[in-house]
């Protein structure tokens, strides 16, 4: 009777809504095959790390505000450029598969990057459907030991507890790019990395691609 599966999950968050919002947020960024081409066009020159984060957050809120009108496809199309220009997707792709990356063929690297990219954008488009008064507030920033930046912000929910959002950025060429989002202390990069490396180890490359593709289909068809 007292059955509880995701009991740990229960533990994780106080209310469903809050959790959904933040889990999704940090789940959303990823790799894009389109990074090469579109980043050429869209790269945000000379923005500070803080500006990159604030710009992305504003774009996110804007898409949420038009969310219902846009529909899934419309949101996907708006999220794609916003994510690609502000995130170092290729680097994230390498990191989440860890040392396995070395062993991939060129074709596999490309395939992985492509499906990751679509999954990330699709998960944003699926999860940020509408707006109900959410906002972000900048708290502080800090340099890391290896020359990165951490931007501390808080996501303010009208009917719920605030959620801390920390963004980790590294410089790519001359531009600051997001490589991780830590929401309420949960690191997207670490979480994904554990999942992906585990699947690669247990089931192999094709299984990983199949799982990602299945997720994209679920988001698209819901």
């Amino acid at each position, binding site marked *: 009777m007292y059955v509880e599966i*995701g009991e740990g*999950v229960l533990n994780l968050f*106080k209310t469903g809504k809050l959790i959904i919002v933040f889990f999704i947020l940090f789940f959303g960024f990823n790799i894009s095959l389109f990074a090469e081409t579109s980043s050429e066009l869209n790269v945000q020159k000379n923005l500070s790390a803080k500006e990159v984060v604030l710009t992305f957050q504003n774009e996110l809120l804007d898409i949420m505000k038009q969310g219902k009108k846009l529909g899934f496809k419309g949101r996907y199309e708006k999220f794609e450029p916003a994510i690609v220009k502000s995130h170092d997707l290729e680097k994230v792709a390498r990191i989440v598969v860890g*040392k396995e990356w070395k062993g991939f063929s060129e074709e596999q690297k490309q395939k992985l990057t492509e499906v990751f990219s679509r999954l990330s954008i699709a998960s944003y488009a699926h999860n940020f459907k509408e707006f109900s008064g959410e906002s972000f507030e900048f708290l502080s920033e800090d340099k890391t030991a290896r020359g990165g930046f951490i931007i501390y912000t808080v996501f303010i929910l009208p009917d719920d507890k605030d959620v801390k959002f920390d963004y980790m950025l590294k410089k790519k060429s001359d531009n600051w790019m997001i490589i991780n989002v830590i929401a309420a202390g*949960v690191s997207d990069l670490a979480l994904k990395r554990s999942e992906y490396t585990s699947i690669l180890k247990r089931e192999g490359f094709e299984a990983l691609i199949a799982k990602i593709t299945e997720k994209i289909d679920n988001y698209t068809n819901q």
Partner: protein
Amino acid sequence: MLSLLFKKDRSKLFFVSVFLILFFLSGCASHHSIDSEPSVVEVNEQEIDPFEGVNRKVYSFNKVVDEYVAKPISDAYIWVTPKIVQTGVSNFFNNLSDINVFLNDFMQGKLRQGGLDTGRFLVNSTLGLGGLFDVATGFGLQQNEEDFAQTLAVWGVPQGPYLMIPVLGPMTSRGIPGAVFDAAANPTSYIGFGVPLQFLQMLQVINARANAEGDLKFINEAALDPYIFTREAFLQYRKNLIADGELSGNEDDFFDLEDDFYEEDQNESINLDIDNKPVVSKEVKVNSAPTLPVISPQVEEVDIDEQIRQVRLRLKLRSTRVENTVFE
């Protein structure tokens, strides 16, 4: 929320003890099954989740039980009960758990937060009509999450292995005494508040499951490997609670460093210096650590995995120091 579930029914401790026996028996066997030299990630995983084989089986079991028992009941509850009643029920149980929150505040030496959380409990118990309304949040007194497992961490008790407990879900071995204390500190273990005790406890479980509906749906949608997803999110979230949100950045610098090793066309020297600046948020002061091993700069002559392992060790050492600093 986890503690909520534990608080209501001591019979669950039975499951805990059964599981303990189970995993000790089976755990030893699984330990020797890996022949090849483990990678960095594997080493880390084996330390954290040495009983993954058993844990995964329990996780699958829990999933089935949830699907066929807990979820249908919870769905019915959500469907039948008006939203305002659901909120009232949630508030009521949250308010009772606030007793445990301020007790643990004080045990961790957080006197100011303890005072505020006590105030929160008093306000909600009176103005909030026995906790049915959360008026304190409106006054700026948001609920804090404290429990005895966190207090044990602050006192220096190690985390111990990650465990998936039948029916109850994820926990670390440190969470077991934590859960016992939390249960003892919650009135719903003893008092029915005008209704039969068993009814109240059951309502508490259903309420907890109903509140988690959104999270579980999200995990179901997003996770490629729900077992790993749950484990990582749980462990990271707990770690963050213990540190009161003051830890950040170490792991990212490690990932970044590792990526430099694996990145193609990367033949230049790699910056291994992780100690020239604290990697944590401003509020936390890191002790300088002159005694840490220095990593050889001759990258090509040393095994990359060994280098990464060393850096990871150093990050881990420092992270431990940070935790200690936070709690002093």
